[in-house]
């Protein structure tokens, strides 16, 4: 072997290796530069993630000094599976079986639901309590995952359900305050954009941007949890005692329009809102219109007095309970001969009220009623308010005014009827009713505070004072609302017993029994309306609704610390208190 041949072999090897190294440089240039843009964008995209930062929804608090929580959030877990690997490994049925056992689901249904998908995501159950989720997690089932979620909880259950409403499964308020105050309650979700490492975890030091979420604000209601509780209990008892189909009640602060309590039956548990039907979800107190019957005479007589058409002492012939007018017979519940205006109200004579209305004339009656906000929404800050029905005068027939006078052929909501009563109690000013006192952000800033607002002034203050006196006589001995009295207080109010329209005719068996009133009559503080739908067998407002008014009012005055107007009454008040069991 010569030196020269060896050198040639050296050079061969050296050249080959240099070519290889040059080739690698070319390859590097290609990787680094040539497939630049598309490849880089795709790669960066798979390493970036974007997350919406959800915030807890604001709470709903009651208006009492202790600010009781009426709606809050609790952390729960959504349980989901990735069915694909389970199907591939034939473990779907066993996993579904174990899930169904722990979560009390139907195993066959769950298996089918998970089996038919070829996606990588399927909910097993949402909003699973933490303990259940922890139990599942301990079982270490394959392809079963948990994600954090929040659910709305209403600690009071059915109480105040219609006012509070509920939040649907997508976290959107769907009725009541939850819907009405959605924009405040939901807060503003934030955004986080960041990089993920190879194990799909966020790399905190590579965060691209984070927009902090703004927590939902707390909504403070005017509702007082304790008054509400009294009202709910009383309503439940009433519905049961009188075999009623439905019932509604509202307590309102006379001077401001603040709603202190509002309840309707049937109700529902907002924690299980899916189980409730539409009838249960209906907030009847504001969303159900009915013919008010005799309570409506209050508006008619107040208007007539205000306009000087009648005076309290004017006497009307009540035709012994049967009056043929325009070929239609109008009856009184009890037959009366001659009654003055004050007694027409006290005894609730239909014939008397009709004659007063006829004296007023159609046009004047209609405009007066409209100024009492009949046929118009009061604008309460809750969704679902109805405006009632008051036909324009052009559509009235010859007997319309005589029927409207006794609350027939006109429809109102309980809220409207209470508005009329409270307007009289509040010196002739109808206040806009409201349930939201204020909205307070998470850091304590008051974002919104409700101020009382006068909607209308249907009568002069002097007329209002007069009406209060007349209405106070209703609860005296011999008045229709005698059972509404509260020991130590003068209660002013009016009963109503309206025949319901069934199949186009006024029913002889189905009634709407109501009582609307306020106290103390001398210096009114709270107004209240009780409406009972189809009570059986007792059906008059005086027998069904008035006692409920009395029962609640008696507790309410003590709870609110209202004092009687005169020393004698005060004595009675304390005596009554001492006599209480």
């Amino acid at each position, binding site marked *: *072997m010569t030196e020269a041949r060896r050198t040639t072999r050296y050079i061969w090897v050296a050249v080959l290796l240099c070519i290889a*190294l040059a080739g690698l440089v070319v*390859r*590097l240039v290609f990787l680094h530069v040539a*497939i630049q843009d598309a490849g880089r964008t795709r790669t960066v995209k798979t390493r970036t993630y974007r997350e919406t930062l959800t915030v807890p929804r604001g709470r709903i608090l009651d208006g009492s000094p202790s600010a009781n929580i009426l709606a809050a959030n609790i952390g729960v877990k959504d349980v989901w599976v990735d069915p694909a690997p389970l199907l591939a490994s034939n473990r779907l049925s066993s996993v579904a079986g174990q899930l169904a056992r722990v979560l009390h689901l139907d195993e066959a249904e769950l298996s089918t639901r998970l089996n038919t998908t070829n996606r990588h995501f399927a909910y097993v159950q949402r909003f699973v309590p933490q303990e259940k989720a922890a139990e599942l997690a301990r079982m270490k089932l394959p392809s079963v995952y948990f994600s954090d979620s929040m659910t709305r909880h209403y600690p009071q259950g059915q109480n105040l359900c219609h006012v509070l409403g509920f939040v649907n499964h997508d976290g959107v308020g769907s009725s009541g305050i939850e819907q009405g105050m959605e924009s405040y309650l939901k807060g503003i979700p934030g955004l986080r954009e960041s990089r993920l*490492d190879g194990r799909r975890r966020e790399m905190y030091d590579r965060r691209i941007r984070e927009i902090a979420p703004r927590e939902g604000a707390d909504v403070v209601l005017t509702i007082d949890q304790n008054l509400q509780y009294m009202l709910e209990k009383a309503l439940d008892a009433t519905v049961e005692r009188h075999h009623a189909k439905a019932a509604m009640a509202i307590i309102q602060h006379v001077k401001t329009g603040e709603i202190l309590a509002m309840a309707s039956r049937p109700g529902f548990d907002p924690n299980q809102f899916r189980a409730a039907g539409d009838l249960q979800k209906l907030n009847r107190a504001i969303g159900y219109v009915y013919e008010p019957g005799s309570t409506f005479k209050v508006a008619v007589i107040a208007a007539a007095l205000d306009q000087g058409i009648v005076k309290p002492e004017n006497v009307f012939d009540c035709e012994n309970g049967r009056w043929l007018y325009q070929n239609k017979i109008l009856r009184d519940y009890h037959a009366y001969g001659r009654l003055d205006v004050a007694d027409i109200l006290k005894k609730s004579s239909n014939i008397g009220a009709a004659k007063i209305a006829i004296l007023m004339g159609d046009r004047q009656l209609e405009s007066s009623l409209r100024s009492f906000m009949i046929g118009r929404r009061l604008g309460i800050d809750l969704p679902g308010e109805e405006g009632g029905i008051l036909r324009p005068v052009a559509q009235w027939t010859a007997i319309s005014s005589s029927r409207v006078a006794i609350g027939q052929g006109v429809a109102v909501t309980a809220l409207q009827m209470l508005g009329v009563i409270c307007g009289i109690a509040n010196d002739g000013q109808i206040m806009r009713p409201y349930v939201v006192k204020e909205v307070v952000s998470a850091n304590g800033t008051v974002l919104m505070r409700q101020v009382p607002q006068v909607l209308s002034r249907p009568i002069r203050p002097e007329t209002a004072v007069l009406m209060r006196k007349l209405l106070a006589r209703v609860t005296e001995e011999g008045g229709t609302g005698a059972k509404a009295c509260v020991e130590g207080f003068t209660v002013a109010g009016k009963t109503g017993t309206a025949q319901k329209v069934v199949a186009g005719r006024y029913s002889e068996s189905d009634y709407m029994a109501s009582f609307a009133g306020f106290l103390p009559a001398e210096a009114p503080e709270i107004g209240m309306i009780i409406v009972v739908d189809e009570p059986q067998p007792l059906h008059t407002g005086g027998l069904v609704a008035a006692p409920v008014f009395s029962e609640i009012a008696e507790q309410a005055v003590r709870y609110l610390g209202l004092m009687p107007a005169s020393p004698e009454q005060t004595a009675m008040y304390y005596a009554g208190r001492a006599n209480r069991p």
Partner: protein
Amino acid sequence: MMWKAPTILVGIVLLLLALGIVMLASASSVKGGDAHKDPQYFLRRQLLFLSAALIAGVAASSLDYHWWQKWWVPITLLAIGVLVIVLIPHIGSKIGGSRRWLKLGPVSVQPSEFAKFAVVVALGAWIAKAGNKMGTFREGILKPGLLLVAMLGLVFLEPDFGTTILLASVGGVILYVGGSPPLWLGIGAFTGLCGFALAVLKDPVRMGRILAFLMPDKYPAAAYQLGQSEDAFTLGGVWGVGLGESIQKHFYLPEAHTDFILAIVGEELGLIATTIVLLLFAGLFICGMMISFRAPDTFGRLLGFGLTLMIVVQAAINVGVVTGCLPTKGLPLPFISYGGSSLVVSMVNIGVLINIARQGLEAGADRSIGIRDRARWL
């Protein structure tokens, strides 16, 4: 001119080491923090290895390379011995399905790294001894071939396919340059390749790697690492994303601090840095070739040639794998990847090269006169 080759060589090696330490600090931080709760875990250890490697390198440069020639038989036997020992269960540590490590107290050493050095020494010494008989089948192919195959086989059994291929190619080239008959060498290489192919076909892991290399779309799982590595270069672009800013090291690229560290270099420092790394290895190769070419005797020449080749071919294979030109093996990038045995042996290689250079011929000296009579440097 010639005195410059070892100086440049030392400069190149120091640059590679410097870059290596910096990149290791970056690339290993995530893995270290995750697996050992200490982002500097691998850096600390590598710095320790580096001190040992520097000492070993200086020592090797001071030791007359003829010493290796004199002791080539014991060295070869020792290499074969440790390669056998590492295969014995309970003695060799099994990591990831391979028995590659021997635990010696607190440190683990890789016998295959030592085998790389031993193969060069053994073949060089053999060729020097055989002299003109290298042209014969018996002396030029059969005997050195058996020696090479014995060591290859042991490394192959670990199994460490990357080192096997490295040893086979470098060993073959040394024999070729040393004067083995090319025809027989070719036949031997072909036989070896067939045997290797058979073994790969029987090994699902290696087969998977080859298939993933050939058809990445059909074997996405096996092609994952390669894809992540290519993505790293693409993300880096020309100038890189900046030192320490790699995303791929965050669990996207497995072995970011060992075999695939060049991908992180490419991502953080860009095309500039990866090209420089390749140019440094090319420079190392040229320096090594010059030193080898001017060695005073056949052994020195083959030793220098083999050691240079061992480093540069390993680097080329590593870069080939990382850039997706070759199927995945398990070879670290010399001087840069994490690993003590590799670093120490690489530095010893460089040390020996420098010793050869110190005893080298002056440029333009007459190469025909008897080289054995030349005064030794030491």
